[in-house]
């Protein structure tokens, strides 16, 4: 399946891009992050991130669907 992924802050710097389309095997958001982590050598472990699907927070064990826009959310530091 094909998903669009969004990268922010240090993930964007490490990936060298703010988004991309990934062709991944069917699976959970956790598996999609693992594929992206291997591809870009992300230093943040998944345990420190949250995930969002199509603009809303989601759970890591939910299945990603073809066409999803998936955002990996590093620990936030607003304020």
């Amino acid at each position: 399946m094909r998903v669009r992924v969004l990268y922010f802050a240090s993930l964007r710097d490490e990936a060298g891009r703010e988004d991309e389309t990934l062709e991944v095997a069917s699976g959970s958001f956790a598996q999609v992050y693992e594929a992206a982590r291997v591809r870009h050598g992300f230093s943040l472990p998944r345990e420190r991130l949250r995930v969002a699907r199509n603009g809303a927070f989601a759970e890591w064990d939910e299945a990603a669907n073809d066409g999803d826009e998936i955002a990996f959310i590093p620990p936030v530091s607003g304020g």
Partner: protein
Amino acid sequence: MSQQFRINEQAIDVPRLRDALLDHRAGAFASFEGWVRDHNDGHSVQRLRYESYVELAESEGARILEEAISRFAIVKAMAVHRIGDLELGELAVWVGVTAAHRDAAFLACRWIIDEIKARVPIWKQERYVDGDSEWLHPVA
């Protein structure tokens, strides 16, 4: 509207926000301003860059303000967070709350800024005097 959360690329217009909160039911107004500071964690900071996942930040921020309205005896709540490049002394975040009485206004204002810092997808990059820079990803 009794609450509004916004991500702003331009400077935050505080008098306009305060005016939008004026309400005859309110006898108290409390606000918080977060400013760009020249140091953090032993580093000399020259400027900050904030970025956000704006769509999710605005929905999560709105949820925080709705929760504040139901948790505290307040009349209105607004918050605005700046993104982009900010210089020392610039206003990064503003929270304003009105209530019939001051206790609820102070408590809700404090609660809202704490929740924004903990939950809203906004990231701060510190740019240091020595030329280095770093995204802050605090451990919860």
